[in-house]
């Protein structure tokens, strides 16, 4: 029994890491053997060393917190706007008639295409990045909230009315939980867009942040710092995804599709 449990643990927890480790070792070996120029791709150990260096100088923390702040503020603004608009248009038909077409039209503009305009408006200051993130995040949250609210079971709403729920109780007990799985899909998608937008915006126009760190390092041919910056973005992307997963697991416990995941 115990033996098979151990085997199972190895299968589930260890095996998935096998390939990445092999690749990492191969990468290190290739650089050391001189097959791979460290200009093209520095060895993993060099990347770690660069990271340590940045950390020691205190630079890393500065860039990190700047990028993080932009992401959070942009997400908070765009996300809450999209959420409120989605709720409003989902619950009240007249609001939808008034607003939805306009919102859908704006949605068709790729928000990254607005970068030149945004730079003209805000320069390369904080507002530009926050604005782009907010715009990028707004639509997936809006669309999925609206979709979720629209698909709330009308029978449940009717039942709620018969059972004496007041409008705000209907909202908290039926509208919102009914739309939640769709809203969380939007959240997950929006978190992805949030990082993507930030990467592009910081790379093109910034004087601080992870993107700036990477671009600056490129000018000085510090490939190891560039690679490290890319890894940082990947890490944050993963982190955001884990948060979304955690919320799904917690808030959608009742849904068989999300149990034991």
């Amino acid at each position, binding site marked *: 029994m115990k033996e098979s449990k151990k085997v199972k643990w190895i299968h589930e927890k260890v095996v998935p890491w096998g390939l990445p480790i092999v690749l990492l070792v191969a990468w290190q070996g290739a650089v050391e053997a001189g097959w791979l120029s460290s200009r093209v791709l520095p060895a993993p150990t060099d990347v770690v060393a660069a990271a340590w260096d940045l950390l020691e100088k205190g630079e890393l923390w500065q860039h990190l917190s700047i990028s993080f702040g932009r992401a959070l503020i942009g997400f908070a603004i765009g996300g809450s706007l999209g959420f409120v608009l989605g709720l409003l248009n989902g619950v009240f038909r007249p609001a939808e008639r008034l607003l939805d077409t306009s919102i859908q039209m704006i949605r068709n503009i790729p928000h990254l295409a607005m970068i030149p305009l945004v730079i003209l408006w805000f320069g390369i200051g904080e507002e530009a990045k926050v604005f782009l993130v907010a715009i990028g995040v707004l639509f997936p949250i809006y669309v999925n909230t609206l979709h979720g609210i629209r698909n709330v*079971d009308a*029978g*449940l709403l*009717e*039942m*709620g*009315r*018969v*059972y*004496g*729920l007041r409008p705000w*109780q209907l909202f908290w*007990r*039926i509208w919102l*939980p*009914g739309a*939640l799985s769709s809203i969380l899909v939007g959240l997950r998608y929006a978190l992805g867009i949030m990082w993507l937008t930030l990467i592009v915006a910081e790379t093109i126009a910034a004087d601080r942040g992870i993107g700036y760190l990477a671009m600056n390092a490129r000018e000085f041919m510090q490939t190891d710092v560039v690679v490290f910056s890319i890894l940082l973005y990947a890490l944050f992307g993963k982190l955001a995804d884990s948060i979304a997963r955690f919320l799904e697991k917690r808030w*959608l*416990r*009742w*849904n*068989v599709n999300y149990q034991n995941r």
Partner: protein
Amino acid sequence: METGRGAELVFVQVAKQFGDQQVLRRIDLTVKPGEFIAIIGRSGCGKSTLLRLAAGLETPTSGMIQLDGQLLHGLNTAARVMFQDARLLPWRRVIDNVGLGLKGDWKEQAITVLEQVGLADRAKDWPSVLSGGQRQRVALARALISRPQLLLLDEPLGALDALTRIEMQRLIERLWREQRFTALLVTHDVDEAVMLADRVVLIEDGECALDLPVRLPRPRQRGDAAFADLVDTILRRILSTESDEKVIAASSMSEKRRAL
């Protein structure tokens, strides 16, 4: 258990139209306090509409509905509805579904009604893990916890298998006898109507085409000859185009036969 809390429900020349479609033409129906009425009729004849009118979810195009002598307008707060699909909130545990919309300290009461429907041990479960019959029992508990004066049942057992359905019929009858609410049951199962109701009302062409008292003693037995006769009579009445008089005659015949 306290008794005599049932509401009196009176339909006075009630008509209901959806756009051009006249669903109910002229419904005159008096339901006495504590009475159990079964409503039958072909699919689409307006049974659910009648129930929704009684619940205050629809308003009559003309005519009026009185509840204990008061004109009903807006939502009927004395009524609770049981739907064909249990309509439990999937994101609330069984006990929280039962206590939906209640204020104050309702947990203990919720456990009591769950005990009455035999599901006290499932209080902490999600609705998704319950069987269809169990879900309907939770829905029944939710309907009864607020001690409604009027219970409206819209084919609540229609989707259940035969055995579970018989169990549920017994449960509903028992709770009705204990609590004495007025009950309006829509069903497509004539057996069920005769099993439970004091009166069976047939809706046809937007009117009450038949209003037949069921004078069999409770608890009723399906195997009983009189029971079978009555079911047969009603079925033939629904399926034929016979005039009402003949049916009434036939039904009183079958009652006489039972008396013999």
